[in-house]
Every structure is written in structure tokens, then in C-alpha cells.
């Protein structure tokens, strides 16, 4: 078999069967016959470990050697069907262990701090908190409450992203999570605006339940989803004063793409969605605010409501093309010919917008296994991080480094997409600085920072909070304690504690303090990694075999011989021997250094 792969970077094939299988993964597929652009299925006899690894990389979050071997032993059809039609596979994952932070009075949450305090001024109460009858800062508890919920919901969102990342790590249904992640980028809603983790939690459950089902069903559910309604200002879209935000994004981003509708279509469609709103976590329609007159949308007319407008949109030929192409670009590659675009659209259309058959077609296709498609995709940050942990064999997402900080630094923080357009994929994940940051992430797992401070317990990065904390404890009055650090110019002299309705900086501090007491902490274990055992288990006996094993386990594309030999030489030097047997007691750090070199290669970004 080895003779089929003349360009293998691993020059000397080993007789160890585990290493042999892994070596095959490196073969990429230049020698394969699979044809780019051909959606027809690959032949069962073409199926091999490299294909199985590619499939697990794209349809999931990367495979361990054991998983790759298991999928390679199936037929391609069985392997793809197991991933795509996954709902019957038992997946006993814990539900999100919510902190008890929400109280009924918090809903509806005021749109801003001024709105919160204004409401309290007018009615004597806001967010369930009453105004103090007399004294200085009568509104302070109200302002505190406002910031409490902002902080608490944010911290809980960070916990939720840990929970989701752990699902990605250990799920038996990787494509379920991967499609949820795709839809999270497609229907991109951010906690930054929603300010309610509960809505985002519901939305994520929606993506997981319906993400591979029927798109019409999904689109309607999303259009009636409280997070989406909050994000796109449904509350202000009412009869007589339609807000176009929602209708615009449905056409521009969710279904058709720019250039396929007019501004009139948007205005008319917006009227169909009037009166749609949410109350806390429930979708509601307010008939008094719904405009039930005739609308003219995309050449059709009727007394449409929102669902009917969605049906008009789904009847547009361009809609299936747009969606199928976006899914293909996410899973396969960025370049799509007009012919392929049409073919993909046909698959979705012919299957009545069922998503699973489209995914099955893509993952079984010649195109998917062609040289143009394999080892060419730049992993989005969340996938880079989760697949790294998977390949390290971890069973839990480490608490150090912080998952949210890492993914944010790399440009993809869960539940915080940058705009309603979601994340731009492909090359835009990479900048020179970000490429270095990706490598530094590897360093931070392998050599955890002992100066690490948990960001969910330590708001020190937050401007001035720490200082207010200290000054209050030292007996400063509120005005002085919350005065910005003024070692520089100041035109006002120090004043005594000021009379005021509330102090925002104090509220910000109290909000943090209350949130920290209620939001459960994120466990801060470092990666439970034992490279010595991993390499030993692989059967590797020399530094060369160890490096080849690590390269094949972690990389999806071959590395050049010079780079590989350099790492082998490095490991040999660090160990003081090329013989692994007997070096177990001191091999861990040298192996970690070698793995850091591998994770720092430009090639490591690809899957």
C-alpha cells in the first residue's frame, strides 16, 4: 500500500501498524482520483484512513487516531451517514449547570442604565428594586442592579461557552455541534447587545435540535426566537412605524444575499413582521401592532404575515443557491464555481430544504476528497482550540488558558460574533499577529502561565473597579473612592461626598461584587496531558518515530523533510539520546517542546 504514496514526507515506513495508519493520513490526496467540482460519490474502494481523517476534521472537530481507525473501517457511506444522521446515537451530555442569577423583576431589562434609573424615578421601582425613600443616592440600589445583571449575564455567557466547548470536545455527534456553530455564525447574535444569556442558551438549543433538519422550520424558529427578536429590534417594528432591521437581515444575510431584492421588498416585508415580539423567553404576536394589509414582496402580493414572507423568500431560486453555497464554503472551501453553486442549490431545493441530504451529498462527494478540498481549510479559532484539545486526548476543556480569552484573542469568541454578518471565514482568520498568537496558544497549554488570574473571578482588567474596591475598604467616601485616578491635571479641587441620585462607578463596582457572589466559578484545571504516555502507547521507540507520530496525530498536511528532521534533531538533543526506551522519566518536557514546535508550524492552521 505504501507504494501508492510516493510523496510521503515520512521517508521510512515503519512496521508498527498504528504508526502505519497514521502515516497514511499524511498522504493528503494528490495521488487520489477524486475530481474537484464533482458532487458524485467517491467509490468505496477509494476509502482510506486519510479520507476518514479528513471527514472527521471537517464534519467534526478532528479525530483521534482511534476514531480515525474506526471510521476508516466503515464504508464511506456508513461513515458519512453516522455523522449526518446522528440523532439516534446516544449522547449523554450534561445540561448546562446554570447559576441562579435571574430574578423575575429583571424582565423586561431596561435598554440602558439611563432608562433603568429614569424608570425608577418615574415609578419608584425598576428591575424589582425600589427607590430608597430618603437620603443620599436614593437610586443607588437600582443602578447597582442594572450593572449586576450586565456582569452576571456576561459571566454566565462565558460559563456557557465553556459548557458548549466541552460538548464539542466529547460529543458522540460532532456534526450536531459543528452545524450549531455554523448557524451561530449565520444567525449571528451577540450577548453584547442581547444581555441575556438565557436567550442565547435557548437559541443554541434550537441550533442543536434543528441545525440539520429542515431550513424552513429552522428559519421560522429563528425568526420567532427571543434572542433574534431582541437582537434585531423586533420590539420597535410596529404597525405604522416599521423597523427594517429584521426584514433586511433576513434577505441580505439569512436567505438570499445582497443584490437579489429591492429596498421596497425590505420595507414591505418589514410590515409583515410587525407585531412580532417576545416576552421574556417567549415569542408573542401583538395583533394590535401587526399590519395585516396587503404587502408586495419579491413580485408577489398578499396579506402576508412573517411566516408567509419567509415562504415567499424560500420560493426564490436564489435562496437555495445562497444557502447551499454558504454551507459548502464553510465545510469545504471558499472558491465555488457558478456551476457548482447551481448544483448545490439544486440538491437543497430538490430535497425541499432538508439540510441533512445536502450535507450527505457534500461529505460523500468526489469534490470533498479532491486535492483542492483536503488540507486546505484554515481552521476557525474555536475549531483550532477544540481540535487541539481533542488531539491531545483531553476529556475536558482546560481552565488555563481561559477558553474565552484565547478564542477572543484569535478572533472568534462564542456568543460574541462581531456583527450581524457573523465571522468572515477563510483567510481573514489569519493576520501576521494572529498567526503568532495561534502558536502562542500552543505554548500556553503546554507551559501554563503561573501568573494566570481567572478572569471570571478577577475584574482587575476592568477599568478602576479594583481601585474603587480598595478605597471603599479604606473608608473613603463614595465621591472620593470613585474619582478617577488623578495624578495628572485636574481643574476641580477635591470635594466632599457629593449629593446625587446614584453613582455609576459605584454601581459598576457593586454590580461586579454581586455577580461574583452568584455566578458559579469556572474550574481552572490545566490541561491533563501526558505526552510521554501518549508517545509510548503509540509504540514509538526512537525520537524519529515519536516526531512522526506527533506530526501525523496533529497535522492534516505533510511537512517538508527539513522541518521534520529539524524537530527530530531537536528532540534527540533535548533527550540526550535518540532512543526513547528508558527516557520516560525525563521525556515530558522535551516532548512538550517538540509539540510546541509542531503546533507553531503554519501548517497547523489547516484541516
Amino acid at each position, binding site marked *: 500500500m505504501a507504494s501508492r504514496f510516493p510523496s510521503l514526507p515520512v521517508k521510512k515506513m515503519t512496521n508498527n501498524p498504528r504508526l502505519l495508519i497514521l502515516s497514511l493520513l499524511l498522504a493528503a490526496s494528490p495521488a487520489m482520483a477524486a475530481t474537484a467540482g464533482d458532487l458524485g460519490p467517491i467509490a468505496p474502494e477509494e476509502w482510506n484512513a486519510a479520507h476518514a481523517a479528513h471527514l472527521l476534521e471537517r464534519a467534526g472537530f478532528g479525530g483521534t487516531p482511534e476514531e480515525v481507525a474506526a471510521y476508516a473501517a466503515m464504508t464511506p457511506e456508513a461513515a458519512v451517514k453516522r455523522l449526518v444522521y446522528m440523532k439516534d446515537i446516544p449522547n449523554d451530555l450534561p445540561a448546562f449547570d446554570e447559576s441562579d442569577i435571574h430574578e423575575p423583576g429583571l424582565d423586561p431589562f431596561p435598554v440602558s442604565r439611563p432608562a433603568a434609573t429614569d424608570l425608577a424615578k418615574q415609578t419608584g421601582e425598576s428591575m424589582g428594586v425600589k427607590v430608597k425613600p430618603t437620603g443620599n443616592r436614593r437610586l443607588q440600589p437600582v443602578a447597582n442592579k442594572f450593572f449586576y445583571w450586565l456582569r452576571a449575564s456576561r459571566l454566565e455567557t462565558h460559563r456557557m461557552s465553556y459548557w458548549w466547548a466541552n460538548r464539542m470536545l466529547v460529543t458522540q455527534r460532532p456534526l450536531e455541534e459543528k452545524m450549531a456553530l455554523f448557524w451561530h455564525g449565520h444567525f449571528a447574535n451577540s450577548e453584547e447587545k442581547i444581555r441575556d444569556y438565557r436567550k442565547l442558551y435557548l437559541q443554541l438549543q434550537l441550533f442543536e435540535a434543528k441545525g440539520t433538519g429542515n431550513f424552513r422550520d429552522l428559519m421560522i424558529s429563528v425568526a420567532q426566537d427571543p434572542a433574534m427578536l431582541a437582537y434585531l429590534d423586533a420590539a420597535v417594528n410596529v404597525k405604522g412605524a416599521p423597523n427594517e432591521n429584521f426584514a433586511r437581515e433576513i434577505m441580505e444575510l439569512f436567505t438570499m444575499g445582497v443584490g437579489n431584492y429591492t429596498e421596497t421588498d425590505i420595507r414591505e416585508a418589514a410590515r409583515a413582521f410587525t407585531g412580532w415580539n417576545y416576552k421574556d423567553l417567549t415569542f408573542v404576536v401583538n395583533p394590535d401592532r401587526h399590519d395585516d394589509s396587503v404587502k408586495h414582496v419579491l413580485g408577489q402580493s398578499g396579506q402576508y404575515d412573517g411566516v408567509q414572507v419567509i415562504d415567499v423568500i424560500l420560493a426564490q431560486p436564489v435562496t437555495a443557491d445562497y444557502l447551499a453555497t454558504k454551507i459548502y464554503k464553510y465545510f469545504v472551501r471558499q472558491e465555488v464555481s457558478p456551476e457548482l453553486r447551481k448544483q448545490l442549490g439544486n440538491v437543497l431545493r430538490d430535497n425541499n430544504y432538508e439540510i441533512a441530504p445536502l450535507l450527505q451529498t457534500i461529505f460523500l462527494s468526489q469534490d470533498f476528497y479532491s486535492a483542492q478540498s483536503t488540507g486546505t481549510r*484554515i481552521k476557525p479559532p474555536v475549531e483550532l482550540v477544540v481540535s487541539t484539545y481533542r488531539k491531545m486526548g483531553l476529556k475536558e476543556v482546560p481552565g488555563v488558558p481561559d477558553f474565552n480569552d484565547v478564542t477572543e484573542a484569535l*478572533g472568534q469568541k462564542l456568543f460574541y460574533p462581531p456583527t450581524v454578518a457573523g465571522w468572515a471565514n477563510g483567510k481573514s482568520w489569519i493576520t501576521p499577529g494572529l498567526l503568532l498568537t495561534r502558536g502562542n496558544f500552543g505554548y500556553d497549554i503546554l507551559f501554563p502561565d503561573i501568573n494566570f488570574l481567572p478572569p471570571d473571578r478577577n475584574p482587575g482588567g476592568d477599568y478602576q473597579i479594583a481601585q474603587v474596591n480598595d478605597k471603599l475598604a479604606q473608608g473613603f467616601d463614595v465621591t472620593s473612592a470613585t474619582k*478617577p485616578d488623578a495624578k495628572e491635571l485636574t481643574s476641580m479641587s477635591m470635594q466632599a461626598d457629593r449629593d446625587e441620585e446614584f453613582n455609576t462607578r459605584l454601581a459598576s463596582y457593586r454590580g461586579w461584587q454581586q455577580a461574583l457572589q452568584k455566578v458559579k466559578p469556572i474550574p481552572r484545571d490545566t490541561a491533563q496531558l501526558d505526552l510521554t504516555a501518549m508517545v509510548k502507547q503509540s509504540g514509538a521507540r526512537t525520537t524519529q518515530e515519536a516526531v512522526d507520530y506527533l506530526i501525523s496525530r496533529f497535522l492534516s498536511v505533510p511537512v517538508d523533510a527539513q522541518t521534520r528532521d529539524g524537530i527530530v534533531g531537536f528532540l534527540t538533543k533535548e533527550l540526550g539520546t535518540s532512543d526513547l526506551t528508558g527516557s520516560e522519566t525525563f521525556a515530558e518536557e522535551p516532548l512538550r517542546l517538540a509539540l510546541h514546535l509542531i503546533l507553531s508550524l503554519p501548517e497547523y492552521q489547516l484541516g
Partner: protein
Amino acid sequence: MKTTPNLKSWSRREILRAGLAGMCAGGMPMVFSRAAAATADAANGNRILVVMELSGGNDGLNTLVPYTDDAYYRLRPHIGIKADKLRKIDDRFGFSPGMTGFQKLYKDGKMAVVHGCGYAQPSFSHFTSMAYWHTGAPNSGEEYGWVGRLADAIDPKLTPNFIINIDETQSLAVRAKDHVPVVFDDPNTFGRKGLYQTRPLLDHVGEPVEGNASQRYLTDIAKSAREASVLVKDAWTKYKTPVDYGIYGVDLPKVASLIAAGMPTRLYYVAYRHNAFDTHVAQQDQHQRLISYASDAVAGFMADLERIGRADDVVVMVFSEFGRRVPENTSLGTDHGTANHMYLIGKNVRGGHYGTPSDLTRLDEGDNLVYTTDFRRVYASVIEGWLKYGQSDKLFSQRFETFPVFA
């Protein structure tokens, strides 16, 4: 040719690399420059734009105060700045008391103030409004930033290091389809973490022999990261300036160091970070301090450019994602607002007022200023007037009338 690189800032290696070893008999360097080495570029090929973001929503009314307008003092009885404290620039407007730098730049005719900048259906969310300014596409979805799209348009040959963004994370504004912005924060740590013994291998970037297109792309970026990090560190190490940028330089000294080192960068992006201008409470001291720092930094930068000999080649554009509500709030601060000033600063800027100030007596239902100038008019003015790219309409999918700001 205005470009006169400081020879001292060029390493021997760089001079050799540029093939510019020729010297006059007297030992003086021949007139040379990066642009001279690439005469194919138009004469405008040296022109640099530095975008400076004031994040958090800068209170424009307390930055440049309309001190003859009674409405201003009526609506801001406590935080309105008294006329005698202001740095007056004419019989209507005066800068915040600490803004000596801006006052001088204006009086020297190097500053254009554009009034009433905003957009229709304004968002009061920092996040959303900033995204609108970053993309130049309000109330719409656009993947790429306006600076990124601009780079793709004016530099189709994809010059390395064409965009530099100094910040912790990449700004949406510089996200490009084709260009790779160089993004870093601290020049001293712009590099790889790694132990001493791994350095030679870590810093080595191999040539991709037969890899796929993505692999080649990544290897290119890895090289560019390595080279950019070396150039940036190098420029920063060599850079010494007698110029005072004040207390917080807003990363402009880093920009000056890179310009001094002859980087081919045409588009720089810096930010006064972390929502600093979000001044809801007791803002008077705080805002005066913040805006003075910004003013000092820009004035210092312009002086430093004179010293470097590149003052003719650089324009600074200052903006914020929105202004503040006109009436002060009950906490001696201001809440999120709408229309604001933009500032264009440079030796080649035709100083003065542009656009129409929003009317303080005709606020919208939320007590906000009504914008008079779509902010993309200013973007378009810079793109067309300064960077000499005549098709700004392609970047914003509509044509915006430009201001004649540039000499």
C-alpha cells in the same frame, strides 16, 4: 520629493536590500527614497493615512464647544465649559481647556473640522455603531472594514505591511479580503513565545515545496509575521524622539517609529482604547483629561513627523462612534448620542470648518443632534482627495459628495 528618510534610521542591511548604495563624492547620500526606488508608483504613493479612533463615544460638544450658543449652556448647566476657559479658535468655537495642541493645529491651518457627522437611523450601542463606522455600512451587514476594502482597491499588488493596526485585537475596520493587516500591540512582545532552545526552529520559516494554496498562503503570512515583527521591533528599538507626546500617546509614537523606519505602510489604524470616552458620570475632569491626551498625542505626532521629514506625507483622521446626548444627565455626565465632529489633520489639509453644525435647538425626540453630514462623505474625501483613489463609490456602493479638504 518630500520624502527624506532619516538615514540613521536605516540599517545597512536595509539600504543594501533597497539597492541604494550609491553615494555622492562628498559622502552625502544621494537623494533616494522608497518611492524613488519604485517610481512606477504615482507621486501620491507616499501618502499615508492614520486613522485614530476615540472609542466609547467622545463628547463632541465638550471637545469643540459652540460657546456663543445659549442652548449649549442651557442644556448643560453643570458640565458646560465656560467661555473664558476655552481654547478659542474663532468667534464661535473653542476647544476644551487642555487642548492646546488642537488649538494650535487649527490656528496654523492644519486642521479641518467636519461638523455634524453621523448617519441615518443611528444606533446607540457602542458595539453596533462602531461596527457601522468600521465597515462604512450603517444598518447593513458587511464582512470587511472600509480601510481593508480601501487597501484592496488601491494596492492590488498586495504590498506587504500595507496596513498596520496597533491594538490588542484586529479592528473590523482593517479587515480585508486580500490584504493581510499587520496587527500588534506591544512591539516588544510582537513575536512568538518559546523557550531559548526552541528559538532557531520557531523562528525558521520553511519554503513550501509542494504544498497546496492554503499552505503557501500561510507560509507567506508566517514569513510576513516574522519579517514584520523584526521590522517593528527594529524600528521601535531604534526610534528615539525628543518630541513630547504627552501622557498617553495613543500609539502614535509607534506609528512615527515605523514611518521613520521607512515602512511601506500607507494605512495606519490606532485607537484610544477600551471605551475610554464612555463618560456617563462626573465627566468634566475625566473628559477634559482624556481629550487633552488625545490632543497632545496628535500635536506631538505632527511635530515628530516634521522632525522625521515626513510631515507632508501624513494625514490623521480622528473619529468616534457617536457623540453624546446634548442635555447633561443627572450624574454630571452625558449619555450616548449621535452626530459628532470629525477632524482631519496634516500639513496638506486646508484648515477650517466643513459641513454644517447640528442645530442645538432642533434635537430629535431623544434629545439628540440631527446629523448633517454622512460620515462616509469624510471617508470619501480622504480616499479621493488625499489617497487619490477616484472610485470611493465602489467601496460604499454609492457616491458621497466630497469636501475640498486637501490642497
